[in-house]
């Protein structure tokens, strides 16, 4: 009889709270469609890991549970985020960036949130002494990369205990980009600035040799300048090379569909399994969620203010909203900027330059992650 009741005997209120959080993520994914591909598996992983005795992590015989096996195989080894990067690379078309390479600088400026959030996490030590180490602060800052795989990659190196909170923050705020970014953009720009029309020649296609050479050369350059970023950039560019080479259509489609879907599924549920009550129900987790939110605000502000700064020196002004698209949340951020521009001036089409800034943000966030790894490992 005791054996049958052991589930009830090994259940705490903290686990109940975590199950409610897991269910909330599932509801957000299904009802609100907030990043459902990730929040649903994360929510269910959270539910599984907080059931009595957590057999998904280790069963009563002491054998390793399946989610722990997946964690050791895919997260500890950094394999899942890298496989996701291959899939993302296969999905990205760098043409808008190659047509307007100046957009790269917006991808750099919008990484400001990473470092600002890192500083905030460090400052938190003044109020709660010893709450975050420098490495943990860097892992919290990387939420501002607005890029799930980079967050998981860096978080796994610097703050394993916070991996669940970091991932949930990154993916939730990415889903909330349409709510977070517009007020920040509006607060930092005038109506006149938002109405600036940007013209660009998007009629001429980028020749295939450029599309093929770009991922190869970028990988080599990163290998010399930021060697710690090679796994991330290399995986992204490998996926892109498969896409652009033109002779690996099947592999490109597999990377974009089967690989992306399978790894996303495993990644989500595995990350969810790190959300145990003991690692999640803490004041520092709440602080991570708040700082993560501010990281997105700082990212947006960094990009917009940089665009305004550049405009001081340009005769032909850039619409400063483009700066906000420099975050890595692809393609939501570009769409938001385009929609806002259309609202101000229906004849203004900012989608292509915004996409250019957005893919630059993808590269910029990886480089920022690589820099933090180089500095703190």
């Amino acid at each position, binding site marked *: 009889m005791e054996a049958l009741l052991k589930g009830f005997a090994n259940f705490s209120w903290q686990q109940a709270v975590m199950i409610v959080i897991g269910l909330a993520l599932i509801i957000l994914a299904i009802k609100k469609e907030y990043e459902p591909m990730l929040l649903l598996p994360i929510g269910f992983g959270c539910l599984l890991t907080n059931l009595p005795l957590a057999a998904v992590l280790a069963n009563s015989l002491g054998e390793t549970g399946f989610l722990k096996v997946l964690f050791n195989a895919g997260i500890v080894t950094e394999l899942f985020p890298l496989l996701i990067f291959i899939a993302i690379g296969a999905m990205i078309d760098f043409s808008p*960036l*190659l*047509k307007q*390479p*100046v957009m*790269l*600088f917006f*991808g*750099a*400026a919008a*990484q*400001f949130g*990473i*470092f*600002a959030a*890192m*500083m905030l996490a*460090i*400052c938190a*030590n*003044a109020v709660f*002494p010893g709450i975050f180490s*420098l490495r943990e*602060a*860097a892992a919290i800052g990387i939420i501002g990369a607005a890029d799930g795989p980079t967050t998981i990659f860096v978080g796994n190196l610097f703050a394993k205990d916070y991996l669940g909170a970091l991932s949930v923050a990154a993916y939730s705020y990415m889903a909330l980009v349409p709510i977070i970014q517009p007020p920040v953009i509006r607060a930092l720009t005038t109506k006149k600035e938002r109405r600036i029309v940007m013209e660009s020649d998007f*009629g*001429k*296609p*980028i*020749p295939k*040799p*450029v599309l093929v*050479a*770009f991922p190869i*050369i*970028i990988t080599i*350059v*990163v290998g010399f*300048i*930021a060697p710690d970023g090679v796994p991330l950039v290399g995986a992204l560019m490998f996926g892109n090379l498969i896409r652009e080479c033109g002779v690996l259509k099947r592999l490109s489609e597999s990377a974009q569909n089967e690989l992306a879907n399978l790894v996303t599924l495993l990644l989500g549920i595995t990350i969810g399994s790190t959300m145990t009550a003991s690692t999640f129900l803490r004041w520092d987790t709440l602080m991570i969620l708040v700082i993560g939110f501010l990281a997105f605000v700082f990212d947006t502000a960094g990009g917009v203010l940089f665009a305004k700064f550049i405009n001081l020196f340009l005769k032909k002004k850039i619409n400063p909203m483009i700066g906000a698209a420099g975050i890595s949340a692809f393609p939501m951020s570009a769409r938001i900027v385009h929609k806002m521009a259309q609202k101000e001036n229906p004849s203004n089409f900012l989608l292509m330059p915004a996409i250019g800034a957005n893919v*630059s943000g993808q*590269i*910029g966030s990886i*480089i*920022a992650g690589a*820099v*933090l790894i180089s*500095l*703190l490992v």
Partner: protein
Amino acid sequence: MVGEMLLQGLKYMGIGVGVVFSVLAVFFVVIKILVRIWPPREDTKQ
């Protein structure tokens, strides 16, 4: 202790922002060179 961390954080922030801009500036030059070698053309298939 916090002051020390803050200084170190500021240092990493400076290096981080600087390196991200520098690396992307190198990519900018790479793209410019690539586009100069193979300039965009009208799609000949049309």
